[in-house]
């Protein structure tokens, strides 16, 4: 049921807007401490080599250098998405596995001195044969990147539901294609940065650009071999993450280790160039896909074979591969499916989670193949989607339980939008420029249930002036969750958004939290905040009832006041109520506590794909209109529309911002972005050569939401802005197909690709 809210659903400016607009917001690289040193990392120049010897004597003798460390000075901890299979030392131990792998680190009085010292570290390498292509890496005689992984397979999945072979035999139409996606980067503008301070009580305080600070909290303790209670992780403002700042990296570790060695605070800020070649990327994939349909367009069977290039280390890759495969089961009914996936080590930059996490690659393949099938069968691409759309109450063959679901409505609305666009469509003019329209759909998680810690917590403290302090363990990397969570607290307590002070993560104070990934913060932490605020309200209810001589049941919290049954005559300011609670009698300390995680979910098995990941799923459709210049191959996305079901939006303006950012990012993935490497060497490690969309690529954007109200989400809210990324690329590629008649099966679709595609057609 929709209700009249004061804060929920409103277009409220974000709570950190002013400090960000004035330049006062401090990011990790802006921080400094007295006596602070500056650190730099020496990186491998080889894609694959054994380290025979490291001599740091000359570097240590440079005036101003305070410490030099290499893998020998570490305990050899190896990080990994699943700690039992950790394979990534923060500084190389015996081998380097990609160009950019961390080998040694220096702390010095300034950055220049540290850089000078890096040049004087002598590393003797024995070059090993490298393998940079995932297909070659899977061959029996390929060089082994990690001894424990035959054929360089870091993880594999094998999902099978229904009777796939029989289903394909019964299909009227079967189609097979190979799709490929290029490696791309997260694209945050703030480079990785860390500041660490070790003191003589053997305690480490760490500030870093981490979107999930508690990952670093745990791994830092393991990597330094010190108790968790000796580590305090404090989160400054984060300059974007998109999945690329979840994990703890060598920059974080080296800052801490060098601080431990020198007894001085150490700051490390990596260059954007280093971010581009030495940190993370989205998994490039090769997807062989087969889809079978009945003549009326009913999806019958799907079979996929995926090779995902994981780069040098596992990272969070097991989850990535599971998601790529399992999400073939959503957003359409698919009774029979089989998906085999291989995540393969190569001597390149490691792959990890990135907005949409694994699903954009497989959804690109599935949605484009669906359009090819529709065209060949003479069916309408929208009708075919509508026919197969999942509905509320259904369960996918792998076990996703669909609860609230506005997919059908989203597709129906898309049909109306597309009809209007067709009417408004410019004539093709001189015939050299062709326009086209395309659609893609998605379903996405609202906080994935995985093994391990999954609960979000919130603590709320009220002040006697009516102010409210809210603490959670969740991080706003830019998406606006600090504001959304504050809106939830304000709604429950009947105060204004500006009354809430949001305390960013400080592991000494804030509740343990898994982190900012899988669109979990609004949904899961939002519920924890709601419960904590209700706890505060309950603690104040009795006091209010006594003071106002009323039944606690009749007390209403609204507009910074408490009322009896909504009557203005019997009310008092919220601040006065808090004061009475704190001062009268023995006094009360009003602190509310809430914690929440979805109940009854089946933790998915990454290898078989079985399980129910999320307490709710978001859905939606993305439309794109493109203009293709058939002479130059240039493509311009002229407008886009998004029709999505995110439940009850908590903040419409921030939600739109998430969708718009995701959509424009998708233009980059579809048309321009690709990390280009030669023999493991990144050739475009600058923003000039790696083309992300600029303001010139911004296009008209229409946003509609399908009204659902999720029963589990806080105030009915679900995920927004990450799921949509999944369908942007196929919508654009399908629009190009509509314009040119050529279905492009590899992204990015650059002008050269367009021209050769058009040539191939004629």
């Amino acid at each position, binding site marked *: 049921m929709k209700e009249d809210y004061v804060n929920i659903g409103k*277009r409220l*400016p*974000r709570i*950190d*807007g*002013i400090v*960000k*607009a*004035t*330049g*006062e*917001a*401090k*990011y990790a*690289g*802006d921080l400094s401490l007295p006596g602070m040193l500056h650190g730099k990392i020496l990186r491998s120049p080889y894609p694959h080599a054994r380290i025979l010897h490291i001599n740091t004597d000359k570097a240590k003798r440079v005036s101003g250098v305070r410490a030099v460390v290499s893998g020998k000075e570490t305990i050899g901890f190896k990080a990994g998405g699943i700690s039992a299979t950790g394979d990534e030392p923060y500084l190389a131990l015996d081998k380097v596995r990609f160009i950019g792998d961390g080998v040694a680190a220096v702390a010095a009085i300034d950055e220049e001195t540290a850089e000078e010292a890096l040049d004087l570290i002598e590393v003797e390498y024995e070059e090993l044969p490298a393998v940079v292509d995932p297909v070659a890496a899977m061959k029996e005689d390929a060089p082994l990147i990690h001894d424990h992984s035959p054929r360089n397979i870091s993880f594999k999945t094998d999902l099978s539901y229904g009777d796939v072979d029989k289903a394909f035999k019964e299909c009227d139409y079967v189609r097979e294609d190979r799709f490929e996606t290029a490696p791309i980067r*997260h*694209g*945050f*503008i*703030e*480079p990785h940065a860390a500041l660490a301070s070790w003191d003589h009580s053997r305690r480490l305080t760490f500030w870093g650009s981490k979107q999930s600070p508690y990952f670093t909290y745990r791994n830092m303790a393991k990597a330094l071999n010190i108790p968790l209670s000796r580590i305090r992780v404090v989160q400054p*403002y*984060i*300059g*974007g993450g*998109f999945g690329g700042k979840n994990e703890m990296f060598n920059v974080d570790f080296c800052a801490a280790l060098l601080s431990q060695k020198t007894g001085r605070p150490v700051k490390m*800020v990596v*260059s*954007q*160039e280093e971010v581009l070649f030495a940190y993370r990327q989205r998994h490039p994939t090769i997807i062989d896909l087969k889809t079978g349909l009945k003549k009326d367009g009913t999806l019958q069977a799907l079979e996929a074979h995926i090779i995902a290039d994981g780069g040098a280390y596992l990272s969070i890759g097991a989850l990535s591969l599971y998601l790529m495969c399992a999400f073939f089961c959503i957003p359409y009914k698919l009774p029979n499916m089989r998906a085999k996936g291989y995540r393969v080590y190569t001597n390149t930059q490691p792959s990890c989670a990135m907005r949409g996490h694994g699903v954009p690659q497989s959804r690109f393949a599935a949605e484009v193949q669906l359009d090819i099938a529709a065209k060949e069968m003479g069916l309408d691409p929208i009708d075919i989607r509508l026919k197969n759309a999942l509905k509320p109450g259904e369960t996918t063959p792998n076990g996703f339980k669909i609860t609230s679901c506005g997919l059908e409505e989203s597709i129906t609305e898309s049909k109306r939008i597309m009809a209007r666009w067709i009417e408004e469509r410019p004539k093709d003019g001189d015939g050299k420029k062709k326009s086209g329209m395309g659609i893609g759909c998605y379903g996405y998680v609202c906080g994935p249930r995985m093994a391990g810690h999954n609960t979000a917590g919130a603590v709320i403290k009220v002040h006697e002036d009516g102010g409210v302090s809210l603490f959670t363990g969740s991080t706003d*990397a*830019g*998406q*606006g969750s600090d504001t959304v969570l504050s809106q939830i607290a304000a709604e429950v307590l009947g105060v204004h958004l500006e009354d809430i002070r949001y305390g960013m993560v400080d592991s000494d104070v804030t509740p343990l939290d898994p982190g900012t990934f899988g669109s979990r913060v609004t949904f899961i932490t939002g519920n924890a905040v709601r419960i904590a605020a209700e706890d505060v309200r309950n603690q104040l209810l009795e006091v209010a009832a006594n003071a106002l001589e009323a039944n606690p049941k009749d007390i209403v919290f609204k507009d910074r006041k408490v009322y009896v049954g909504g009557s203005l005559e019997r009310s008092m300011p919220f601040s006065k109520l808090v004061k009475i609670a704190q001062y009268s009698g023995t006094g009360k300390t009003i602190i509310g506590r809430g914690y929440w995680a979805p109940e009854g979910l089946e933790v998915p098995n990454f290898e078989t794909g079985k399980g129910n990941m999320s307490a709710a799923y978001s859905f939606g459709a993305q439309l794109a209109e493109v203009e293709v210049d058939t002479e130059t191959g240039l493509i311009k996305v002229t407008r886009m529309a998004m029709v999505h079901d995110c439940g009850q939006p908590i903040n419409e*303006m*921030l939600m*739109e*911002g998430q969708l*718009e*950012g*995701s*959509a*424009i*990012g998708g233009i980059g993935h579809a048309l321009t972005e690709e990390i280009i490497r030669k023999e493991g060497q990144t050739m475009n490690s*600058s*923003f*000039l050569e790696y083309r*992300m*969309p*600029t*303001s*010139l*690529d*911004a296009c008209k*954007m229409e946003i509609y939401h399908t009204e659902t109200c999720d029963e589990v989400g806080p105030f009915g809210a679900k995920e927004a802005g990450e799921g949509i990324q999944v369908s942007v690329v196929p919508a654009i590629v399908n629009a190009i197909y509509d314009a040119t008649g050529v279905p492009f099966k590899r992204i990015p679709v650059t002008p050269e690709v367009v021209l050769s595609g058009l040539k191939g057609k004629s």
Partner: protein
Amino acid sequence: MKKQIRLKVNGVEYFAWIKPHWTLLDVLRNEIGLMGTKKGCDRGECGACTVIMNGEAILSCLILAIQCQGKEILTIEGLAQDGKLDPLQDAFVKLGAIQCGFCTPGMIMASRALLNKTPHPSEEEIKRGLSGNLCRCTGYTKIIAAVQKASTTEGSR
């Protein structure tokens, strides 16, 4: 060898001892302590370090501090006057043109220089004026709208 230069930053005169190869960005951040100007790429590709020098938007990572002798520089910290936000800052906040905020100072300074020269820019002029400033979060839509709004607010003053 350090050399002394004189700079006027946000109306205040500074005498800074600098090394000749230091950029204006490094001097603003490390010597003067104005951390609002961001270092995104340090090679003139992302626009996060945009400041206004003698009325022109410049990338402070691409100019040596020593070239700025006697120049007047406006950074993001100098934009709000008497506790009141610049109309651009206000519009960025109110229209949701800010997400992670790392590109924001540069984006606002580039917009400021644009509006100083072209008080009522068309959408196309705004897009061109900001095309050197990268933002991965917003998709630029709300940034463009904020600049449009600020241009109308300023016009009525």
